[in-house]
């Protein structure tokens, strides 16, 4: 084709375009994009399936080895209708929500579930809050004991599950305890349920149900299972401690020291609060509160600030309205939108700062607020430094911390020496050729320090 032909064809296509109908490619493009997304999703599902199978195999192997897997809650969670409330000192794996595991130490903790069930988790207990199944709230008791007080609610149930069975209830007071029983190299879990008021329904692992009335006590067992090698030998107490990581030594130097430390920490907090609320600090605090109130009054009176606030509220609502994609494909679009909105937010904040600088009334109020709050913080810090009682408590806590470290080190040294002695004894026997076919203690895999 010559240059002239090309030119002719170009004008021809221009004329066709001018006289032809208005093209609408958008719907077709969008349809194609959706198809691509769907196709990729299917491909990815294939991968997810393969990975899921691999994970299932790994989980199966891990379960065979009695490895304790601490369950972490998923990253994206559906909104919870009713919040959970926990009172007392307890270790929570992940944020407190359905699916998280709660471990109590020396003291009991109280968990409020669904506003109708109050659960007192006894010391040295491990509980997982189950995901809500319809209206039913549930707990999984791994170890220890819980005392439950459930209000009667016809539409909602409550159950405590365990490895040895479960207890279902609608309005009653009862306690559930899980203990481990051992026999030679076998172990099983025992579920003990004591009903204080009302009645509960106990469901065994085989599906057999039994009703337990008030002031009654019933037990259920899981099957005997072979214990892992790591649990054998070393004495019953040691074995029980290894089986249940939540269980801490009831007696002994370390247990006493840890309890003392927690009491001391509480005392320190109480003393800090007392200083904060003392008469000396009261005047300073009132001054700071007044300065803060003045600043907010000045803000409310400023029409420009009001306007900026309205814009900010609208922007926030817009940000909330941007739908977070459930699939990976939409993320690019989502982040682009969010980036734009965040940029606008920054711009608004910059305008707010400029307003603060430009308006003399606002600037004065802001400065006064900053100065009085800083003065209060400084005075509080000085008062805490000067307080002899607080100083003594902090010093005591530091000494205790060192002592705990020393005791822990001693325990580790003793453990290492024990394993070393076992290894030496085995070497000696091996050299003498007394016992053949015996395996040497594996020091590599032992966590000595």
């Amino acid at each position, binding site marked *: *084709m010559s*240059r002239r032909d*090309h*030119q*002719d*064809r*170009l*004008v*021809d*296509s*221009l*004329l*066709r*375009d*001018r*006289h*032809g109908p208005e*093209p*609408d*490619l*958008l719907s*077709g*493009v*969008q349809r*194609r*994009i959706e198809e*691509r997304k769907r196709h990729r999703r299917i491909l990815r599902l294939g991968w997810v399936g393969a990975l899921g199978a691999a994970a299932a195999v790994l989980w199966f192997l891990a379960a065979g080895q009695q490895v304790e897997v601490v369950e972490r809650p998923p990253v994206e969670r559906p909104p919870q209708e009713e919040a959970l409330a926990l009172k007392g000192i307890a270790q929570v794996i992940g944020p407190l929500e359905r699916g998280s595991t709660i471990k109590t130490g020396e003291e009991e903790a109280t968990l409020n579930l669904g506003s109708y069930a109050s659960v007192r988790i006894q010391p040295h207990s491990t509980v997982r809050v189950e995901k809500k199944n319809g209206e039913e709230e549930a707990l999984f008791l791994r170890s220890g004991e819980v005392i439950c007080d459930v209000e009667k609610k016809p539409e909602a149930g409550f159950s405590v599950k365990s490895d040895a069975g479960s207890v279902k209830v609608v309005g009653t007071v009862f306690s559930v305890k899980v203990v481990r029983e051992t026999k030679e190299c076998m172990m099983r879990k025992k579920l003990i349920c004591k009903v204080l008021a009302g009645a509960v329904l106990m469901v065994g692992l085989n599906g057999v149900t039994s009703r337990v009335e008030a002031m009654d006590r019933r037990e259920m067992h899981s099957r005997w299972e072979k214990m892992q090698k790591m649990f054998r030998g070393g004495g019953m107490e040691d074995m029980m401690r290894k089986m249940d990581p939540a269980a801490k030594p009831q007696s002994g130097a370390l247990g006493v020291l840890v309890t003392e430390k927690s009491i001391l920490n509480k005392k320190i907090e109480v003393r800090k609060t007392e200083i904060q609320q003392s008469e000396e600090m009261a005047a300073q605090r009132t001054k700071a509160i007044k300065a803060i109130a003045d600043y907010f009054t000045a803000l409310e009176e400023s029409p420009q600030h009001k306007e900026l606030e309205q814009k900010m509220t609208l922007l926030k609502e817009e940000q909330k309205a941007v739908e977070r994609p459930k699939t990976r494909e939409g993320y*690019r*679009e989502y982040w*682009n*939108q969010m980036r734009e909105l965040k940029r606008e937010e920054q711009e608004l904040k910059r305008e707010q700062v400029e307003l603060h600088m430009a308006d003399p009334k606002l600037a004065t109020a802001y400065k006064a607020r900053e100065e009085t709050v800083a003065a209060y913080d400084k005075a509080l810090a000085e008062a805490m430094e000067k307080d002899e009682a607080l100083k003594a408590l902090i010093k005591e806590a530091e000494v205790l911390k060192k002592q705990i470290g020393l005791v822990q080190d001693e325990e580790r040294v003793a453990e290492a020496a024990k394993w070393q002695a076992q290894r030496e004894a085995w070497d000696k026997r091996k050299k003498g050729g007394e016992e053949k076919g015996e395996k040497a203690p594996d020091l590599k895999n032992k966590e000595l320090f």
Partner: protein
Amino acid sequence: MSRFCLETLVQTHQREILCYLRYMGADSHVAEDLAQETFVVAWEHKSPPPAEQEHRCRGWLRGIARNLFLTHCRKVKRSPVMVNSETVNLAEDVWAEVLPAEEGWMVLASRLNECLSGLSDRNRQLVADRYENNRSRADMASAHSLSEDGVKTALRRIRESLLKCIQAGSRA
């Protein structure tokens, strides 16, 4: 690329891309199919040129469309269009000559309108019959008392004059 950006990109450039594909030799169905595919590829691209730089966007989209068209011609073994790199380069040169990078598609469209209004009534009628009413050459020949070859030659001359007019406008 956000949904909004995609919509803007499609609405701004769809006419030009369709016209470009037709100019390269694609029939109307293939042109529409490839134009849609062009925007899908653009959407999938990790770092598209900024939408503000329209001339860069146009060149980039034309590049995608050209590659897709070449792939299409290679796939279709009995393609009526003979395409090689020389032809493609020549076609691209002619396009760039008629439609300079700094000028938008709308400028060209308005210039074409101006040039059409400058045609004689007979020639305007010939253009309308051919492109607007889609009449066959035989029909047009009988309507305008010409032979079929005469219609062909007349239309070719009209197109040449329009091209000169457009180029004169772009130079001015």
